[in-house]
């Protein structure tokens, strides 16, 4: 009955913002039954929510047949989340790349002023590493590593 680490769960769902809450709750609950604290599960839920919202809003939104894939590799002491979707324009991908890079260069209040990018800032605050990649089929992938702090 016990879980064995590492293990992976994946969820594929339509590019529809309303589906994100059940997806993030599922991941949160999976983490909790695997022994992670509610605090860590909640933070992961925030991360998943933000990344998926970005993926849909700036990637595949408007494409009724598109889908988002969330993959979580759950280890004893960390979680690696990969969110993939297809359809982001080159401009949006570059914008995303710049937003990931920007935290080391500029004040985060820039996002507050522009009312953009807060989700990604929260992800960066809550995680250890974040990486963006786009393959030759225009599949955009954002990988986030979040490390367990409660031991």
């Amino acid at each position, binding site marked *: *009955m016990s879980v064995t680490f590492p293990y992976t769960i994946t969820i594929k769902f339509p590019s529809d913002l309303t589906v994100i809450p059940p997806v993030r709750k599922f991941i949160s609950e999976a983490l*909790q039954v*695997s022994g992670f604290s509610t605090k860590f599960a909640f933070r992961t839920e925030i991360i998943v929510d933000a990344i998926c919202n970005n993926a849909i809003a700036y990637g595949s939104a408007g494409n009724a047949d598109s889908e988002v894939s969330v993959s979580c590799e759950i280890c004893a002491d960390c979680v690696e989340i990969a969110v993939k979707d297809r359809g982001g324009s080159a401009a949006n991908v570059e914008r995303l790349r710049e937003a990931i890079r920007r935290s080391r260069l500029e004040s985060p209040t820039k996002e507050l002023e522009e009312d953009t990018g807060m989700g990604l800032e929260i992800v960066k605050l809550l995680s250890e590493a974040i990486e963006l990649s786009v393959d030759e089929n225009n599949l955009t992938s954002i990988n986030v590593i979040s490390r367990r702090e409660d031991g």
Partner: protein
Amino acid sequence: METQIQITCEEIPGKANARIVRFTGDLDATNVDFTTEQIFSYFGDGIIRIIADFKQMRYVNSTGLGILLHFNKSAKEKGGCFKIVNLNENVYEIIEIIGAASLLDIYEEMSEALASLE
């Protein structure tokens, strides 16, 4: 960590070897062992008349239903009872569909279940 279920037990004034046992949460395959241990610990302590209050029980699957039937049978074999009260509509429907409603001791109201204790 299994699906959360809480089981609390309270005495019934004037009724020897009887308790109200309140269940909270979901009863499924992940916590049937824990639940079985709890109920059988009550049986082992001589508490053979149990009124199971399911008011806060959201969900019961077929595995959970199986142990309820087992508790019912075991209690009767010991000369006691396992009465179920305050089932929600959804859970009751599952019990009814599978044909177990007539096999279990089910009451709508706690007062009825208490009155049925000798």
